[in-house]
């Protein structure tokens, strides 16, 4: 079964690069395939929008939005949990537009929702390592 495509425009914040959003939406418009667009998944989740339920059910879903962990729990908060093996999230906050587009149109679904209390890979962790501040935060 072909995956449905969902594009989130993250309309109420500037956290997704505009050029990435524009490039992905333009490609979708030129593709000739059916797709779903939402102005802002956060707003829909806050509203408990029933559209999230219809989107999460049925065919597998490829979602162009933000971090998979955030997307997973936004759907869940609206009582529309995404199937762990039936959803792939392309992160427009950090991925290049061409990579997002490639993943959206790839016939293969690569489920990537986090499961359990997972941690970031050790390599990324090392890169993110910062000087430690032992004890409670101090102010002076």
């Amino acid at each position: 079964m072909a995956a449905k495509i969902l594009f989130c425009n993250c309309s109420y914040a500037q956290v997704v690069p505009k050029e990435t959003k524009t490039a992905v939406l333009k490609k979708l418009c030129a593709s000739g395939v059916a797709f779903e667009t939402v102005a802002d998944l956060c707003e829909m989740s806050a509203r408990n929008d029933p559209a999230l339920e219809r989107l999460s059910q049925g065919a597998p879903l490829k979602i162009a939005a933000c971090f998979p962990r955030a997307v997973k729990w936004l759907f869940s908060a609206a009582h529309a949990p995404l199937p762990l093996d039936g959803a792939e999230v392309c992160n427009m906050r950090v991925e290049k537009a061409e990579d997002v587009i490639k993943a959206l149109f790839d016939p293969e679904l690569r489920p990537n929702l986090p499961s359990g209390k997972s941690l970031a890979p050790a390599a990324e962790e090392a890169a993110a390592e910062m000087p430690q501040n032992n004890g409670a935060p101090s102010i002076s």
Partner: protein
Amino acid sequence: MSVKTETALRLVLYEGEGALPLSEESRFAALQSLLENGYSISCTSQRGAVAPADRTALLVMGQFQDAFPVEAEGANGGVPIRFQDITGLSPEQLIAAVEEVRAGLNAAKHGEWKPWFPVIDYDRCTNCMQCLSFCLFGVYGVDFEQRIQVQNNDNCKTNCPACSRVCPEAAIMFPKYKAGPINGDAVSEADLRREKMKIDISALLGGDVYQVLRDRSAKAKSRFSKERDSDKALNERQKCLTKLVEMGDIPPEVLMSLPSPEEIQRRAQEAAARVQAITSKY
């Protein structure tokens, strides 16, 4: 009215039988304009499928060639379906036409509320209730299983991630926050170790932060009364707040109204009483 009780208008861009297809440019311009104005749109095509309709009102837009009904009802009843011919409409005219339908249906007006609210990662949450005790705005509550949940999203203070700073498990996300893991990025060991991420509520109850604030406030007041120099007093307060803002990226107005230790304890007791009241019904 709470955002949870408002209805939404769903749009469908129809380009199937009986309607002329839009050019790529027109399709993009229409979609971008509608999305920026807060609407969600299903784009139909001969290839692929969109999700089935739900119980919300539908507005079907298209370049219709023949006569079409202005209004219809979904096959399973109950869902009003309206139609809008968009032939020759500019993006601005399209928005105006959609707005008219939205207002007529009394559906939610988008953009009046920035969707800033906490999202709980239940894979990480240990149900410690620190967020419930700490939140100034009554955003959190518990369900009938005594599990913490976000109940009043629109009470949340825009751009305030204070509760996520309190969470010892990095389980609270604000997807529109600038940095990880609060924005939903994967949590690393380094994040969990990073003490500045966690303002231990016991430290708050111990009064460290409050004491400094009180001392600063007292000094500023004293200076204000002695020197009658409001600028100095305000500068002093600003310095203190700037330090705290840098430390936790918490809006100054939130820091100004941090709950007292007694208030936190009172809220915890109230929350426990609410849990008791709810669970006693089951």
